[in-house]
């Protein structure tokens, strides 16, 4: 029996981690052996899930049978990737290379790719029925799906080919700036030594290509079989990110099964405010003013959601704004069960 993946994506600060946890809790309650893979949970949520250290192995939850949680440390999984795909001595050298940290820590796709490879490993282990992935927010979430291709390009030697000429030499000793007159001009500005050091680094990085390219393909196949859920709030910035999954969906991803509008206010507040306004007023002025301003907020949210639905015809669900973020098992399960419009039990059990 194979493992299903639900990939939870969206911009920063929209509550993706909490919703991933809630989906996983509900999955476990429905009898599915469920693993939630998360990146950077708030401390109390991490405690509730029973993960307390970065890079931890999947840990079973003490309060809920069938629920496991794992927390990714992008930096260490990235090192694991190098050791998996490069010969041991080269991997060692790469880890201590002066350019290494820049590529591993900053190349935006590398963190997302590290998470994706980790996800694929969990899927391939077939230990779980369901894996919920709280995806890294790179490029508003889209970056997670383009990461395998971006990484293939990085280590694939396109850059290296330019430095070394059309034919890629088999050994790095073939390369020297002095031996390539065309590079001397660039060398004059940057120092030939720097170009040679970069070339050497790229040679080492290239040894990972065969392994990485193969794995990247497998990851992309996993992506195409996964269910994507987009989380947003009714605010302009996250909505713009959510819209990208409909405007510029990468060919490695499937159309999102649902868009979850998080932190939504009750629509009744708008009706009550309208009613009060028509009546003239009550004794409690401050309380009334408070309802009016929150009703205006609720109104703005409804408008933003309607505009999104009209534009993208996406199935959307609303989750109530809970001032105290739900963290314990029951509150998390309640959060996802109380979603309007979409039955997530069905999506979990597909």
């Amino acid at each position, binding site marked *: 029996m194979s493992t299903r993946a639900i990939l939870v994506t969206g911009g920063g600060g*929209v509550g993706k981690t909490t919703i991933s946890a809630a989906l996983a809790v509900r999955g476990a309650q429905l009898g599915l052996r469920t693993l939630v893979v998360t990146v950077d949970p708030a*401390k109390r949520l991490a405690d509730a899930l029973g993960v307390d250290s970065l890079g931890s192995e999947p840990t079973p939850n003490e309060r809920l049978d069938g629920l496991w949680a794992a927390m990714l440390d992008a930096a260490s999984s990235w090192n694991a990737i190098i050791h998996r795909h490069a010969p041991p001595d080269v991997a060692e050298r790469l880890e201590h290379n002066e*350019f290494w940290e*820049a590529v591993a820590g900053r190349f935006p796709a590398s963190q997302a790719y590290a998470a994706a490879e980790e996800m694929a490993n969990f899927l391939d282990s077939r230990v779980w029925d369901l894996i919920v992935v709280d995806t890294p*927010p790179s490029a508003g979430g889209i970056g997670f799906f383009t990461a395998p291709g971006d990484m293939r390009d990085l280590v694939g030697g396109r850059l290296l080919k330019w430095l070394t000429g059309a034919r890629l030499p088999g050994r790095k000793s073939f390369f020297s700036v002095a031996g390539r007159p065309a590079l001397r001009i660039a060398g004059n500005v*940057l*120092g030939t030594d720097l170009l040679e050091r970069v070339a050497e680094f790229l040679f080492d990085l290239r040894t990972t290509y065969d392994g990485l390219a193969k794995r990247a393909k497998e990851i992309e196949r996993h992506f195409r079989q996964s269910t994507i859920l987009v989380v947003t709030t009714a605010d302009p910035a996250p909505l713009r990110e959510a819209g990208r999954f409909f405007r510029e969906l990468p060919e490695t991803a499937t159309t999102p099964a649902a868009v979850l509008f998080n932190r939504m206010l009750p629509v009744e507040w708008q009706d009550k405010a309208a009613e009060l306004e028509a009546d003239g007023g009550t004794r409690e002025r401050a309380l009334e003013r408070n*309802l009016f301003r*929150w009703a205006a907020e609720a109104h703005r949210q409804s408008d933003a959601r309607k505009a999104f639905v009209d534009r993208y015809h996406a199935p959307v669900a609303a989750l109530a704004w809970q001032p*105290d973020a739900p963290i314990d098992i029951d509150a998390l399960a309640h959060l996802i069960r109380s979603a309007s419009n979409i039955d997530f039990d069905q999506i979990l059990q597909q």
Partner: protein
Amino acid sequence: MFEEGLVIVSGKGGVGKSAVTAAIAQHAAARGQRVLAIATNDAGGLAAHLGQNALGYVPDEIMPGLFATGVDLPSALTEYLHLQLKVPTPGFGMVARAFDVLVSAAPGMREIITIGKVAHEVGRDVWDLVVVDAPATGQLGSYLRAPETVSDLVPAGRVRDQSAWMESILAADSTRILLVSLLEELPVRETLEAARDIGSNHRVGTHLILANRVLPRLGISATRIANLGPGPIRHAAEHHQALYAAQQQWLTALSPRESLPYLFGILTPAEVAARLADELAVAT
């Protein structure tokens, strides 16, 4: 407070960095300053808050005294090579491609090109205020460190001289880093970490923290709310009270120098920025 010099606005994703950047720019322009607003990565957010569809690379005057530009890497690279490194036209393509390689692989290269653009605009001496919608706090350190990183990497020559000059611009008294935060756990944690990192590892003029979307006090006791009958009035009061209490707790931990209020019911990004600009006018 934010009317001249260089202001670099950063913060965790989703805290309203672009809105605050646009508000600072509009506020200063309204007071007669000549202002340049720069978007450094995705220009879409800043553009929307300034009421534009997109921002071009050449600064455009979008309101009287307010100019805006979006820095895209290829244009910035070309400009950096032409203006700052003075690479001559013959051989330009070769140097540009070498830089393409370095931008992908070498630490600090991508960042130095963006900072180079900012420093170039500051150095032109035509702006009273340059305000930058900077990368999120997660990447801020590698940007601030970039001139130094590149100096270490490139032994001598023009690249190194330019880096030293950029360092001096970042370290100037008139340079301020503004860390925008919300009064919530993760943004507060990330903001405090960034502030500590800047304080101990970087030479920048000054840095300060701004709390965004701060709720007003409700001014009604919990007992009185508890005695209300069930319904939207009570529900909205409880909602406000609970959010306010949580915010106050994080306010103590964050102790921001400035704060901007939560805006209720405002739909468009341009309206948000305009309202925040008004708030800045009240604060000063």
